């Protein structure tokens, strides 16, 4: 399988935080970057897109490109930050004009179509609101419409769903599918998210981050085979706990995740095992990462 991006020991150091990441982003899929606040998702995304300079390591894009200052690479990556992507005095018309100047592969007609789909109006309308007067959700929609209107090979989106309502999140998942399908396996998406449940449908590959490092990664279907969701009565919790990766208990029941290899042993102590959702998997993996960091 080909990778859109191979990240080899990419580092970025701040006074109180260090990013040190090795990961792959497989070509042709939507990869979710999942982690708690401060895990390093935005730093990784900004470093990958050349917004922030790395301190060490390397990211190889599309097999042989490494220089994020290279316009040939820039034009293949569609980047969208979590907030304030555009100056606040810009209108849709300004966005269309400026994106056409800043990026060779911007398609104004496609932008107009996407703005219409998201009820933002048209860049050709006489009366337009500027970004300052738009709601947070509409600002994100305008930014996403502008990025999706570029003919890119890799989309890197920082928290694209955070300000969107559930319907818009569903539309975003649909846009992911359309984007990936348009070039039949040649396009890739990397996005960070906290809304794991809403974005699960659009996620093929997951990269879990904690404290600046990747703690787990893989295809969602493979991860759901690798791990199991475990729950049961609180009285059986102590017997199940040593076999589990993450564990929480209340007065009546316990829950957590474990490696699928332990299924038989866990069932033998009275626990119930199930296939986890990505949300449950995320909570379990990130909780374990927090426990490890606290030791």
């Amino acid at each position, binding site marked *: 399988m080909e990778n859109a991006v191979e990240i080899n020991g990419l580092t970025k150091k701040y006074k109180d935080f260090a990013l040190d990441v090795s990961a792959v982003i497989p070509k042709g899929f939507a990869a979710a970057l999942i982690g708690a606040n401060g895990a390093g998702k935005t730093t990784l995304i*900004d470093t990958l*897109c*050349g*917004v*922030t*300079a790395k301190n060490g390591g390397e990211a190889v894009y599309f097999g042989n490109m490494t*220089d994020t*200052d*290279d*316009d*040939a690479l*820039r*034009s293949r*990556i569609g*980047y969208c*930050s979590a907030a*304030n*992507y*555009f*100056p*606040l*005095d*810009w209108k849709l018309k*300004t966005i269309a*004009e*400026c994106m056409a*100047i*800043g*990026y*060779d592969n911007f398609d104004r007609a496609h932008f107009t179509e996407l703005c219409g789909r998201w009820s933002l109006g048209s860049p050709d309308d006489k009366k337009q609101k500027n*970004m300052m007067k738009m709601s947070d959700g509409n600002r994100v929609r305008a930014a996403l419409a502008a990025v999706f209107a570029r003919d890119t090979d890799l989309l890197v989106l920082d928290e694209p769903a955070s300000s969107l309502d559930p319907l818009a999140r569903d539309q975003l998942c649909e846009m992911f599918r359309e984007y990936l399908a348009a070039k039949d396996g040649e396009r890739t998406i990397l996005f960070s998210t906290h809304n794991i449940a809403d974005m699960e449908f659009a996620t093929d590959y997951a990269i879990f981050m904690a404290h600046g490092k990747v703690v787990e990664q893989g295809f969602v279907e493979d991860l759901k085979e690798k791990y199991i969701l475990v729950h049961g009565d609180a009285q059986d919790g102590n017997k199940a706990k040593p076999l589990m990766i993450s564990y929480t208990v209340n007065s009546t029941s316990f829950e957590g995740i474990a490696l699928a290899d332990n299924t038989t042993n866990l069932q033998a102590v009275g626990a119930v095992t199930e296939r986890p959702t990505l949300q449950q998997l995320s909570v379990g993996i990130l909780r374990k990462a927090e426990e490890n960091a606290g030791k």
Partner: protein
Amino acid sequence: MRESKLTVSQAMKLYTGTGLAETILGLAAYDIIFYIGASVCMTLMIMCGEGISYPEAVRSISQTPAGDCIMVLAPAIINVIILLSQYGKDKPGGKLFRTAKGGFDTFVSYRTGAYISMLLSTIIYSGVVFLLALFGLIGLHGGVSAVIAVVVSSMAAIGVVTFLLPIKNEAVLGITSVLVMFAITGVCTVLLPMLTDSLLPHLVIGIIGAVLTAVSTKLYFRHYRMTRWDS
């Protein structure tokens, strides 16, 4: 290796939403409106306060450097705002511009355009103010000397304020820049005409200003790239 470069006007359009010519005319218009508004207010206050006619009030203003001070204020304030617009990563649009065509070269083109805009808009503004004074619509104490002083002092002030741009604290940078801008333009527009009728000091300040702007801009680009763009 970069292949595509944007022109100064395209870079201006990308960063500010308006091209070079549009920006120059826009800034000149802001300066003129600011000046006319403030000047007319002052003239009306004198008319009402002293019970004299408009031409008499204009004549009264032209006997003191007060009108010249107002003339300095307009471009000084607007030029400081332009100089402080550095589009850091944490500012709206800052991250977008870092991924656009040309990268840092485009930022350099944008800033170059900003400097050209400040200078040309100030020249246009000064010319218009001179014409207004010529027709007796406003009072100007220093005459041609004051008009030239606005241009050369703006240039010197832009050069000096550019040296201050590496200051990270935005409040300190803002206050210091305004103070420096006012001090330089005030000295050139109000004090110099009081001391001498010769235009030689203006010429010297203009040359020093041009050199300062060239040196400070070069240093600024190097510093900005190292500490902010590539950080």
